[in-house]
């Protein structure tokens, strides 16, 4: 009895909300744990490069932005399931991901991935053996270390990026491979506890907005807005604010 009732209500609610979200609302899925791309600030609100960029894109395309926090490992399935319309979560454009989703033009150029380790760690990257290497699961870095190091070392995959750093500090893993900006931020903020170590690995493409393949309209809109932001230099400015590099796009 109670269940039927709930079914009726939620069916109604779903129909109504389905109509509201038709055109002018853009829901963006992000992780909220990948500083400085996206993170929770002291106010408990989402902040970071991608949050600012997303809001700017929405302003230019005249849509209302809403950010949805989603775990990394289910961020693509939930996009396909319609929980949100776009992913902005420091996601590299790869051929593997292009099989299930489409990407906008890149909004941040490719940046080599780096290894971080605790200070005074001796690692010989020419013949690494019997070490523990941490990565975030379902990332390009995870695929990369699996291919390069798994034969003679143990790979530990974490659900969240900050868990890999916590385990690195706790000494559970010897090194962590992640996006260059993420590693540099951690090393700078670690008060000398962490260092960048070993080679920089050139993997993946630039970072882009992930969308459902059938969303051609949104794809067009966002690409146009990105091109505009690249042209007038506002994207370079945002990159400068958060990553202190650039400019990349303004000719």
């Amino acid at each position, binding site marked *: 009895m109670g269940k039927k009732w709930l079914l009726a209500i939620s069916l109604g609610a779903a129909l109504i909300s389905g109509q509201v979200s038709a055109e002018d609302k853009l829901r963006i899925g992000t992780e909220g744990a990948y500083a400085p791309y996206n993170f929770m600030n002291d106010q408990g609100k989402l902040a970071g490069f991608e949050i600012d960029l997303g809001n700017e894109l929405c302003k230019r395309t005249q849509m209302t932005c809403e950010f949805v926090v989603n775990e990394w490992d*289910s961020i693509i*399935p939930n996009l396909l399931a319609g929980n949100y319309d776009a992913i902005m979560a420091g996601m590299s454009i790869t051929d593997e991901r292009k099989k299930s989703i489409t990407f906008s033009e890149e909004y941040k150029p490719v940046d080599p991935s780096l290894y971080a380790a605790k200070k005074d760690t001796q690692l010989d990257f020419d013949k690494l053996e019997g070490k523990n290497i941490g990565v975030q699961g379902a990332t390009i870095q995870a695929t990369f270390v699996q291919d390069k190091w798994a034969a003679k070392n143990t790979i*530990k995959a*974490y*659900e969240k990026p900050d*868990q890999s750093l*916590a*385990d690195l*500090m*706790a*000494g*559970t893993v010897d090194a962590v491979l992640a996006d260059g900006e993420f590693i540099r931020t951690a090393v700078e903020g670690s008060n000398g506890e962490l260092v960048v170590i070993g080679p920089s690995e050139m993997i993946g493409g630039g970072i882009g907005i992930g969308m459902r393949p059938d969303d051609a309209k949104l794809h067009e809109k966002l690409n146009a807005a990105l091109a505009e932001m690249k042209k007038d230099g506002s994207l370079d400015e945002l990159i400068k604010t958060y990553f202190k590099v650039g400019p990349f796009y303004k000719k």
Partner: protein
Amino acid sequence: MDTLLNSPFIADLVILFKPALYNIYFLVAAVPLGFVFAVVLALAKNSQSKLIALPARTYIYAFRGSPLFIQFFMFYSISLALNPSVWKPLGLDWLMLSPLFIGPFVLMLNTAAYSAEIFSGALQSVPKGEIEAARATGMSKKQEFRTAIWPNMLRLAWPAYSNEVVFLFHSTTLVYFTMPVINQQQDLMNKAGELFEKDYNLFLHFSAAALYFLVISIVIFYICNLIYKRLTRHLNVDVKLKIKPNYTR
């Protein structure tokens, strides 16, 4: 026969066989030590000395009063925080951060508290006459415990304890909800969840996992019942355990 083997449900049962062993391992690793610890706690709780009774009471209250889910998170993160200063220098980090160790360890701490409550209730209802009879025959304290108190306590506590073991088995699902999965070490719920995320066939994967839980629960109960029959064989009546829900975590 061929079609039966090819049915997705059977395929699921085959895939879930190895994960089921992890749940069984967690249970088997936690129960023996948990039992011993519970008996010690129960005796301490019923002790005349406040100095002994109070810590035991506090321990039991804390572990029964908080969710096992939180206990897993807490002990894992504490162990992680201790790693650089304690485990690593001792060379114990491979052990102290492995879910295969912390999992059963926390389960043991938890079941000890629940079981101690059961045992201490049983201790209080040991027939006074039997204790007095033991004393009258001039037995020492130790003999009195062995012949009068211990067998009675075990017999009185066994039905409730059997339920506790079954629910402890169900609680093993929480290990991999709270700790990292290393290599392919996955338990039933973790694997069922992974299968679900691939094809969204909820009923298939969850019912296959549920069947494993059901069957193993029945086996646990069967074993407990055999032990109960042994414990009560002198009573000369046909007794049977009944599964009934009691305190879970």
